[in-house]
């Protein structure tokens, strides 16, 4: 069964939730053609699709998507708002602890914004310090560009490119403007650690939005949700099994 914030506390208590799903979005510039809420709108749809699949065999509590996260990399581009890394980590920690306190031991974090690297650090700390808690980040296996022979990841579809454009064409076609700027900076992806998006790609895009289609958006969302739900269930089961076998 799938529960969300439309449920009552009485219903949630009776449900004995197996897995809580926490989506994380962002409000940030997405070039000339996509709305500021692209990450938030996208992750809401993905998380619901994942939660629906998980709910076929589990009792699932889908939380509302956090709208804000680490968008400081977009600097002063209008409309962008950001949290500091500690703030996002503290929000995640507080939410996880409040779920854990009511007996929910499996939490799936679905991240809709690529810059939220601190989530891994905080998730590791939560898992390694709280015995009967498992927090996992859902991984989208749609990323096509792997590292080259030198470990560098150059090029790719990082921001407001074909993938995000396709998703929004499928989900919210009325929000997608007709203009497209294609730009793939000639540097490694980690250069977003060294300079702002505005400096690296003033058009606010890292990818080829002109190649995004509504069909690709539909397929990608379906595939991402199916793979993520399957991987999450497998990971929860494997982690529990390893914990049991290595318990003192």
């Amino acid at each position: 069964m799938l529960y969300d914030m439309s449920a009552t506390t009485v219903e949630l208590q009776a449900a004995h939730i197996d897995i809580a799903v926490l989506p994380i979005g962002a409000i940030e510039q997405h070039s000339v053609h996509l709305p500021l809420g692209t990450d938030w709108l996208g992750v809401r749809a993905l998380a619901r699709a994942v939660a629906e699949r998980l709910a076929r065999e589990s009792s699932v509590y889908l939380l509302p998507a956090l709208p804000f996260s680490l968008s400081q990399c977009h600097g002063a581009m209008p409309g962008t708002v950001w949290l500091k890394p500690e703030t996002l980590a503290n929000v995640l920690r507080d939410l996880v602890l409040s779920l854990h306190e009511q007996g929910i031991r499996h939490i799936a974090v679905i991240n809709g914004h690529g810059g939220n690297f601190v989530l891994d650090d905080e998730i590791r700390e939560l898992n390694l310090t709280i015995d009967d808690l498992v927090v996992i980040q859902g991984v989208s296996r749609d990323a096509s560009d792997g590292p080259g022979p030198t470990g560098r990841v150059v090029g790719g579809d990082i921001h407001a490119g074909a993938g995000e454009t396709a998703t929004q064409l499928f989900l919210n076609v009325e929000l997608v403007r007709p203009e497209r700027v294609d730009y793939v900076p000639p540097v490694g992806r980690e250069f977003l650690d060294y300079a702002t998006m505005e400096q690296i790609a003033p058009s606010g895009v890292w990818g080829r939005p002109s190649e995004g289609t509504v069909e690709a958006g539909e397929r990608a969302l379906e595939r991402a949700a199916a793979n993520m739900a399957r991987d999450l269930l497998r990971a929860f089961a494997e982690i529990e099994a390893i914990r049991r076998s290595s318990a003192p």
Partner: protein
Amino acid sequence: MTLYDWHNTSWDLRAHPPDLALLAVGAVEQFGPHLPVGTQNYILDAIARGVGAELAGEVYLLPTQPFGTSGWHRGVAGTVSLSWRTLMAVVTDLVGSLLTVGVRRVAVLVGLGGAACTTVMPRENSIVKTAVRRLNYENPELDAIWVQPLTVAQPELNRLFDAPENDVHAGEVVTSIMLHLHPEQVGEARVDHVPVRGIEHCNALPFASLCSHGVWGRPSLADPDLGARALQAAIDGTVRYIEEAFEQLASIKGRDSRQSQQV
């Protein structure tokens, strides 16, 4: 180039303002039955000094920050760990203090990395990535970068070793480098152990529950000559990465790149 470090005086640095500071962030953690808990620091010391010696310009080499986020090895004898919040504050403070004395270029060596890693995400001390991001965003005059020396040595590691991507911890690569640098510190009990699965759960489970031997790799294959070549490859790869990154950044940020060309 000229390399300055803690043996120099403040007056030396005032007379020769550094173009670049080098900061390595290491760890004190279990490294199996055959390697000392300071393994990462010993290797990083050697790499950072080698990198500082090869870079052009005046380089200020800081002592290796000896403690990192070793929560994966939590509770195993000898492991001493910082929380990521603390490590982020340490890196932020150190780079911030360099800025106050006019050092605007900083390269942070983030643990060692490895042949299975990318330059996008550091394997050890991963919060340094987030710290470097924020420092750059909040200090427009700063160019701070991070790099993992064994990650940027990947092509050479793949030539030297059979399957270096399976070397996750205390395996053939770091054992070889330690045999070259500090053979007296390498024990004989080199037990190979390569778990078939579990690395994907590294954020959820302690290392010991995935790999009870403390070793994830094949230290029995270690060899001091391979170690010498791997060390040199790490130094060369790091120098190359740093030089290219600052050159590209100068162009991206519209900076005068002459500063980096000074010899």
